[in-house]
């Protein structure tokens, strides 16, 4: 009996990510969700700009490449034109929380029936490790060589908390993939986000706190440990909005 194999919704292309990059894990979780819900034939993905810019090579479903930060806007268009299809956008923090913040907030505020997978690794990976809106206070990056100073560079943006102030989002959850237990939780969350869309419930966003060993200057395992010790205190895991649970409570 095969206990574990590569999901069918991933192509055979070799991932270009650095060794130990958690993008690969999240790609696999998204593909597993697509496989398990049996929606491979009607899923359309939107790839961002960032390290995951070539995600269109890795998912076996139809993919579109959006310009920087505009993935939720493109996803909105696709979903409105083809409401029977399942549309997801896969974005990093430089894409979703910086240049695309307007599209992110507007799409959430409209409560579009799309699924957003948000990879938060607190740094710009593809361009070589510059400070992102989600970089931690004191974090050393290429553009904050003395550590991020709130006086000049501001405070990190917590996207789940930010979107939870809006009325429309249906499901917001923050997960991570730094150990097996958290990978299982992340898979459950991602599957639920897709399930919500299949049932026509509305906007779901899953924030995945991820590692960037190369630009953090750490070994892959040390980067996963750093998530636990440094990232999670600033980005606590949990469900920030779940209208299913809220409805149950009212009953």
């Amino acid at each position, binding site marked *: *009996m*095969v*206990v*574990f*194999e*590569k*999901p069918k919704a*991933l192509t055979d292309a*070799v*991932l270009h*990510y*650095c*060794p*130990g*990059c*958690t*993008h*690969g*894990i999240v790609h*696999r979780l998204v593909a597993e969700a697509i496989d398990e819900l049996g929606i491979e034939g009607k899923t359309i993905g939107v790839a961002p700009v960032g390290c995951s810019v070539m995600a269109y090579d890795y998912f076996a479903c139809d993919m579109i490449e959006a310009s920087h930060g505009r993935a939720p806007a493109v996803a909105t268009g696709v979903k409105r034109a083809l409401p029977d299809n399942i549309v997801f956008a896969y974005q990093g923090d430089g894409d979703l929380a910086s240049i695309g913040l307007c599209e992110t907030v507007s799409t959430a505020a409209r409560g579009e029936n799309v699924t957003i997978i948000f990879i938060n690794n607190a740094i710009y990976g593809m361009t070589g490790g510059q400070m992102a809106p989600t970089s931690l206070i004191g974090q050393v990056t290429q553009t904050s060589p003395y550590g991020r100073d709130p006086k000049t560079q501001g405070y990190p943006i917590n996207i789940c908390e930010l979107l939870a102030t809006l009325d429309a989002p249906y499901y917001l959850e923050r997960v991570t993939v730094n*150990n*097996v237990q958290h*990978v*299982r939780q992340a898979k459950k969350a991602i599957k639920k986000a897709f399930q919500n869309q299949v049932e026509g419930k509305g906007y779901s966003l899953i924030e995945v706190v991820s590692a960037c*060993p190369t630009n953090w200057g750490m*070994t*892959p*395992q040390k980067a*996963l440990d750093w998530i636990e010790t440094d990232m999670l205190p600033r980005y606590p895991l949990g469900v920030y909005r779940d209208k299913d649970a809220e409805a149950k409570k009212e009953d």
Partner: protein
Amino acid sequence: MSKVIFNEELCKGCGLCVNACPKQILALSKTRLNGKGHTPVEQIDPDKCIGCAFCAMMCPDCVITVIRE
């Protein structure tokens, strides 16, 4: 009897599976390189494998297939 199969050419030698294995029976090769120049993962004591698939769940590159008989 459980078995893990490695698609060695995909392995980047990050070692996340090595740390995830509860039986500590995985290690990066000290003698071989794969086509990409990384040190691929190997099973050092196959008999102890319990087929939990923790290694496969932590692998970012889908290198590992787990079979339980």
